[in-house]
């Protein structure tokens, strides 16, 4: 399998595909608003995971300064800087709030006691205000970190690296709070009766996992030429692979925790969410998820050699990354579709449209800064490498 994609080729391919997908989605919007809204939310979430996950990884790297970080730093920054774009691409969801979120319906609000109780949080104004706040927080962090890190690379000044850390510590707290409430607003409230307190954490881990899988492919591509070719070693791919492996396990563990707590409690106010996903082909989707999002990557990434060889790692990561659409499909779909197998053409249109635009902007954004950050952490690594440690 060919997993090495030339960035120039990606740019020329992604933009027309994106435009085509967006045009098809716009056409779908005029035809059937509900189907469009569901497809758009799924496609948007799939790609949003990459921007959100990148921002999280970036701050974790600035706090820990692991040797895994400086090679992936620039791609992470480029992906996190797409936050404002993801903000704008969320507007269709706002426009179709009535099609997606039951709690916006007058008649539901009039009769449903539980929705009435939640109305002080779950209301349209609140939803829109919070959406703006989340993206202000994330965009501020993304741009502040990108600007500082470019400065740190140009100056090679340890103080600037320290400032990155000073932003990242409170930044990570704000990031996690915003992501938790965002996941409640955008996905969990699709079923306004249902609740799970681990939902926000699963959302963040899912975005971290998507990002690392995506990065394994990106880094394999970037490692084909300078400046990364002479710097990147099997050790860095081993680290990326270990992150993918660990987050695969963590994601499974959290999803299973959520399931087993609800299964053990066996209360209808919680179990109906899983009961939706236990009929009409949704069980098969769950089984596919268990195989392609847990069992297969777990077994393949158990072996050291598979993680140290970037070609093999990318060949594992790319299909798993694409299969992660199953999770989004499984989170959003059952609320609207009785049958799992109803994969609508608009699902593909939104996925390709948003994805094409996202990838094109990402590949373009990568050119904005030198691919290798020359900050103090990198120079330290390069010194160590030269002396053979």
């Amino acid at each position, binding site marked *: 399998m060919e997993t090495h994609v030339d960035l120039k080729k990606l740019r020329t391919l992604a933009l027309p595909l994106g435009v085509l997908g967006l045009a098809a989605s716009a056409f779908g919007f005029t035809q059937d608003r509900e189907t469009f809204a569901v497809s758009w939310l799924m496609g948007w979430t799939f790609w949003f995971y990459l921007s959100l996950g990148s921002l999280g990884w970036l701050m974790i790297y600035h706090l820990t300064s692991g040797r895994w970080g400086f090679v992936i730093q620039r791609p992470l920054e480029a992906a996190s800087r797409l936050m404002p774009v993801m903000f704008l691409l969320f507007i269709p969801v706002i426009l179709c709030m009535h099609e997606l979120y039951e709690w916006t319906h007058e008649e539901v609000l009039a009769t449903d006691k539980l929705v009435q109780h939640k109305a002080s949080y779950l209301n349209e104004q609140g939803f829109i205000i919070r959406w703006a706040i989340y993206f202000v927080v994330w965009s501020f962090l993304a741009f502040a970190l990108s600007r500082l890190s470019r400065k740190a690379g140009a100056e090679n000044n340890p103080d600037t690296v320290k400032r990155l850390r000073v932003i990242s510590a409170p930044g990570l707290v704000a990031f996690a709070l915003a992501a938790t409430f965002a996941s409640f607003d955008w996905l969990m409230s699709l079923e306004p009766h249902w609740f799970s307190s681990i939902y926000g954490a699963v959302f963040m881990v899912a975005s971290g996992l998507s990002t690392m899988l995506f990065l394994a492919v990106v880094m394999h591509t970037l490692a084909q030429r300078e400046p990364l070719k002479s710097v990147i070693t099997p050790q860095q791919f081993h680290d990326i692979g270990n992150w993918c492996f660990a987050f695969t396990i963590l994601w499974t563990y959290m999803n*299973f925790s959520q*399931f*087993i707590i609800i*299964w*053990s409690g*066996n209360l209808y106010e919680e179990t109906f969410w899983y009961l939706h996903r236990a009929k009409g082909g949704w069980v098969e989707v769950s089984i596919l998820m268990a195989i392609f999002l847990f069992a297969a990557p777990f077994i393949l990434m*158990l072996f050291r050699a598979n993680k140290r060889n970037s070609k093999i790692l990318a060949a594992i990561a790319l299909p798993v990354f694409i299969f992660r659409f199953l999770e989004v499909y499984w989170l959003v779909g059952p609320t609207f579709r009785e049958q799992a197998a109803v994969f609508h053409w608009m699902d593909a249109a939104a996925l390709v449209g948003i994805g094409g635009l996202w990838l094109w902007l990402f590949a373009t954004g990568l050119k904005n800064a030198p691919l290798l950050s020359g900050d103090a952490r990198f120079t330290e690594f390069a010194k160590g490498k030269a002396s*053979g440690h």
Partner: protein
Amino acid sequence: MKETNNNSIYGVVAEFPDGESLLAAAHRVREAGYTATDAFSPIPVHGLTEALGIKPSKLAGLVLLGGIAGAFGGLGLQYAVSVEFYPHIVSGRPLFSWPSFVPVIFEATVLIAAFAAVFGMFILNRLPEPYHPVFNTPNFQKASTDGFFLSIEARDPKYDASAVRALLEKAGAVAVTEVGKHPDDPE
């Protein structure tokens, strides 16, 4: 000098001044075709295991087998207890309620895999081993501070004391000793 016969000789042990000369010597010894070799160093010397041609440890495979055995053991134990031997309906659930088995399966996997790692390590290293002939080498305690040693054992099919000695001296050893299996055996 006491008479030595081949059965009481462990092999030849050479001391080197640093890791680099040890590594260089290891390459020469390997090229000369010796197989029953080992090296002793206070710090990890990068590339030494490859230079001596030491095969990767079988421990990872043992741990994997331990994990698989633990998983099936945990599943089998719970299945046997809750379905075969003591069928008992709890809160209206089927006897084979696999979700509740998963945590125990997981724990059993980790437990047996950890046992396989610890005991497998002991067995593969042939521990405990309170006595080893290589300790008869003069200054061998330096192997845990600043000494670098390379041994070629007498059981090596190519073993010939004088040839081995010449090779190691040429490779830059500061001291080469023929070591006996017992403290009072050699020279």
